[in-house]
């Protein structure tokens, strides 16, 4: 009688262990199934988004290629026109002046242009410098090498700018000739000739030459 009871106790423990294992399997596998369903739903959203991306980006390649072809044609035409009108050297210098360092790349349709040393034909001056140059005030155009030190010192800017001018301007002599005053109220009125408005004392050169020629003709006739 003891043996069957002992066997049944061991069987009960065995059944209990199996039930526990099955319960663990059920719990974790159901949890995995729930997680996989969430993953499936997320992947559905991903596929929808990627599908839209593929659909929207499908024509991009062709359109961008066409735009690039048209831009390449425009660049080739403009480069050809520039080289034709300005010459290869000046064209390279102009491009390098506008885009510093672009001369090293050269023109696409002119491979030899990469070896051309760009002339400095596109120096950019300020409006004040150009105004002084037009007025003949000895503007410091090309007074220094652009590759050298900075001309203008931010701390002593006035002095640095003055140093660019000739010595007579720097030293500021006390009796520097004053600029002339012009206008009707000026202390010195120019064009003070008294013969203005009066009859001419001498004929113009053209009229006197004609008179001399006619006199010479009359003497030959005699």
């Amino acid at each position, binding site marked *: 009688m003891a*043996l069957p009871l*002992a*066997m049944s106790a*061991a*069987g009960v*423990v*065995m059944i209990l*262990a*199996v039930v*526990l*294992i099955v319960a*663990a*399997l059920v*719990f*974790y*596998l159901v*949890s*995995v199934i729930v*997680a*996989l369903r*969430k*993953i499936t739903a*997320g*992947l559905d*959203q*991903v596929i*929808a*988004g*990627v599908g*839209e*991306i593929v659909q*929207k*980006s499908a*024509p*991009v390649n062709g*359109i*961008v290629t*066409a*735009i690039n072809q*048209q*831009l390449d*044609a*425009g660049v080739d*035409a*403009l480069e050809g*026109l520039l*080289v*034709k*009108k*300005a*010459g290869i050297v*000046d064209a390279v210098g102009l491009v390098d002046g506008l885009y510093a360092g672009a001369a090293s790349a050269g023109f696409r349709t002119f491979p030899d242009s990469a070896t051309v040393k760009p002339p400095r034909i596109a120096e950019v001056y300020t409006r004040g410098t150009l105004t002084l140059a037009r007025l003949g005030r000895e503007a410091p155009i090309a007074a220094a090498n652009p590759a050298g030190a900075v001309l203008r010192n931010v701390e002593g800017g006035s002095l640095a700018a003055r140093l660019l001018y000739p010595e007579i301007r720097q030293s500021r002599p006390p009796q520097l000739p004053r600029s002339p005053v012009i206008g009707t109220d000026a202390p010195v009125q120019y064009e003070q000739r008294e013969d203005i408005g009066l009859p001419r004392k001498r004929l113009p050169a053209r009229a006197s030459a004609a008179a001399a020629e006619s006199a010479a003709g009359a003497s030959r006739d005699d």
Partner: protein
Amino acid sequence: MILWWIGDVVLLVVVLPVVVYLLRGVLEAARSIVPSVQSIATVAAAGSRDLDAAALLVTTQDQATRTIAGVANYGGSLDLILDDAS
């Protein structure tokens, strides 16, 4: 009888913990994928919205064509007006 009990002990002490450990690892791996997939879905949706302007490339192509045509006409006129370098 002793073997029976030994089997019970092995089942409870060895098999059950191993099964639980393995299933727990699978569950954690599956749960770790979920936020990643949701992040990818969000990024894909944002990328799709970013490409809404891709349709305007057709307009860009048309404008580029017109611009190049205008530049070509202007260049042709300059070719007639200006003298050649050589």
